[in-house]
């Protein structure tokens, strides 16, 4: 079988699996967040915490819950890293330095999972499982909770109530993320991923050399790393490490896992607003952009125009033999268009233009399909912008799902889409203006600039992947990238929740002949166009200096 045919079948299998699962999973998630009853284990959790899961919260209260929980999480994770040497199962690793511990804590709490450390020689068993893996769950659950709150804003009328944050957090963790992760983790172990709490294991090879085999609760962390679109690798090589991603089957499984919730949430959205076709219009826009990215990167990687790749006969630098160019490209696009950031090959060594597509995937705001929760609310904000643009064209007050998009709504949406471009462009500009930027580059010329641009893009959009030649472990980058991650995660959430509150207060306006039909393909096209134009105008100059200059020079 030719590699291209195998890739076509791989993508077809992936899309088929997603199509099959999105409906039951989307409906299930809608039921989870609409249920009146609590499970026994949930009641036990609420009791031990002292939270009342049935109190409705207005948006400021919901936001306070999100921020309080996240602030406490950052502090806890920071302290855990600082004292890991004094806890059991430390593997002899030293405490993490203050700036790196801050960076890592923000990184995992903000669902970014940017890593300026090497997992196999830095983080103890306790830090990995009771610190990092916990945030893999709860940061994902927070993302879904905020998305659900926004959906409730559309679904509800004449109330400011958006649900209960504690209940949404616990339900997302207990009823969605844990069950999916358990199944996924066991499949991964069966296929070869490791799962143990042993010590570093030294063997004597046939040549007489010693080799140290790493231990770890890898499969359990790998599962939630993908399901929760987190992306923080147990090992430095992330999903390129054979213990995290042993073969072609696990590769497909992991890509499926990181896409499954983001691509199913539009169904949840459609179900909760009472019109599943609205969800399909959204998922279609996500799917079109994702698919275009997959085709572009796969094609460029096979064409391998780079000088070194031409000499080698293919784009295999930084890729694993068991994956090859095609499955690596599929993973790379899926991880940058969600907020995952795990990698099965190193993006720094991709062809110049492929790197540009990967950057663009993040610059779009990771909405195709985006991170768990954050993808849906990001896309819904873009839908409001698209509706607003259409309204300007025909001179009508725009509406979406029966809610008027007035001054307040459009201001909030506009603030939302300005946050990450501001962080990315200002962050990159500052780093380039200071000696720190140049000092961090492994590569020279345009590609060196791309490394810095990629770092700020990845951090601000909460992706977490890197052009990993970038030397991120300095006080300057740990601090500035940490701030980008925190602001890039929580400022948009403020605007989203404020938006949800204001939408929920409105009374719905009836649809008339003049209403834009937002469940039709025409709207999907308008949405994709609006996304490309807004992002393109914002980032084109930066892309021209980096990947475009590099790719066109080749």
């Amino acid at each position, binding site marked *: 079988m030719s590699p291209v045919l195998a890739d076509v079948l791989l993508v077809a299998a992936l899309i088929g699996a997603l199509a099959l699962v999105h409906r039951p999973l989307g409906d299930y998630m809608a039921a989870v967040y609409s249920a009146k009853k609590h499970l026994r284990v949930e009641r036990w959790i609420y009791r031990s915490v002292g939270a009342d899961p049935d109190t409705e919260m207005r948006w400021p209260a919901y936001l306070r819950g999100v921020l309080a929980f996240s602030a406490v999480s950052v502090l806890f994770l920071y302290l855990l890293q600082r004292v890991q040497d004094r806890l059991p199962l430390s593997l002899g690793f030293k405490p993490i330095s203050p700036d790196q511990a801050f960076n890592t804590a923000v990184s995992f709490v903000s669902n970014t999972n940017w890593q300026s450390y090497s997992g196999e020689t830095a983080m103890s068993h306790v830090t990995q499982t009771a610190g990092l893996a916990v945030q893999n769950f709860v940061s994902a659950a927070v993302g879904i909770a905020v998305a659900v709150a926004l959906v409730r804003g559309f679904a509800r009328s004449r109330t400011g109530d958006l649900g209960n944050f504690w209940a949404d957090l616990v339900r997302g963790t207990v009823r969605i993320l844990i069950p999916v992760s358990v199944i996924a983790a066991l499949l991964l172990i069966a296929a070869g991923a490791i799962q143990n709490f042993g010590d570093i294991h030294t063997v004597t090879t046939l040549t007489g050399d010693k080799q140290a085999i790493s231990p770890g609760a890898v499969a359990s962390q790998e599962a939630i790393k993908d399901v929760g679109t987190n992306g923080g690798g147990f090992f430095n090589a992330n999903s390129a490490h054979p213990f995290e991603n042993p073969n072609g089957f696990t590769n497909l499984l992991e890509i499926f896992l990181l896409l499954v919730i983001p691509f199913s949430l539009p169904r949840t959205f459609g179900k909760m607003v009472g019109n599943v076709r609205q969800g399909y219009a959204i998922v279609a826009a996500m799917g079109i952009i994702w698919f275009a990215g997959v085709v572009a990167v796969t094609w460029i990687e096979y064409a391998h125009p780079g000088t070194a790749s031409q000499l*080698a006969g293919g784009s295999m630098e930084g890729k694993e033999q068991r994956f090859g160019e095609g499955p690596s490209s599929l993973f790379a696009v899926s991880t940058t268009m969600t907020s995952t950031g795990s990698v099965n090959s190193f993006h720094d060594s991709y062809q110049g233009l492929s790197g540009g597509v990967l950057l663009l995937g993040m610059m779009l705001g990771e909405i195709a399909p985006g991170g768990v929760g954050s993808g849906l609310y990001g896309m819904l904000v873009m839908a409001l912008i698209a509706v607003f643009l259409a309204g300007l064209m025909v001179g009508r007050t725009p509406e979406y799902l029966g809610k008027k998009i007035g001054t307040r709504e459009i201001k909030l949406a506009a603030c939302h889409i300005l946050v990450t471009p501001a962080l990315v462009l200002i962050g990159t500009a500052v780093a380039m203006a200071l000696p720190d930027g140049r000092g961090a580059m492994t590569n020279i010329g345009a590609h060196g600039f791309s490394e810095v641009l990629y770092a700020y893009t990845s951090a601000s959009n909460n992706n977490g992947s890197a052009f990993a030649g970038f030397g991120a472990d300095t006080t300057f980058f740990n601090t500035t990238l940490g701030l980008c991650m925190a602001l890039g995660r929580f400022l948009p959430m403020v605007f989203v929740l404020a938006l949800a509150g204001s939408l929920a207060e409105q009374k719905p306006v009836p649809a008339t002949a003049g209403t834009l039909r937002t469940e039709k393909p025409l709207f999907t096209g308008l949405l994709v166009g609006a996304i490309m134009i807004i992002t393109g105008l914002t980032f084109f100059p930066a892309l021209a200096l980096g990947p475009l200059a590099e790719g066109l020079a080749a």
Partner: protein
Amino acid sequence: MNNSVVNTGRMLWAALRMLLVLTVVTGILYPLMVTGIGRLAFHDQANGSIVEVDGKEVGSKLIGQSWNIKGTDKPDPKWFQGRPSHSGYDPLATGSSQLGADDPALVKAVAAAKKQVAEFNHVPESAVPKDAVTGSASAIDPDISPAYARIQVQRVAEANGLSVAQVEKLVREHTQGRTAGFLGEPRVNVLELNIALRELAEH
């Protein structure tokens, strides 16, 4: 003012308790459960797919190794060689070169690798496949392409006093196709191939 301080304090206290409870559930119960079931059902995989020869552990099926002459950085002609590794196959330093596709340093490295592989295996440079001259992502890639295995057959056979046909057969037996026909790339696991080679050479 006082009221809002009290409220904020109460909120943070609730948040902390929630975090601790969820830490127990997702950070302790979840991994222990997965570890428990995983070790019972898939003991070998959970422990790293360790391979034994004559009762002694010689590595993991999934982790690539260096096949250099001991104590040197020279490849040993009697073994099948793996892909270039950024860390010399040290599993505690995984990662890759991170050099861009047009980088002059990478061009130099590829050219040097191509020359070395061609001379080492007595084949023309045009016969050297891409995986033989490019560093893997993990630095511990356990596999090579079937093409890279094939160009090593002659040299390995000579160094071990075996016939080319015997070694060719070995390579064929250890060539794995795509999983289920379409997942991943065809490949040869170097450690397993070399273990089989050693057995053949000793008997």
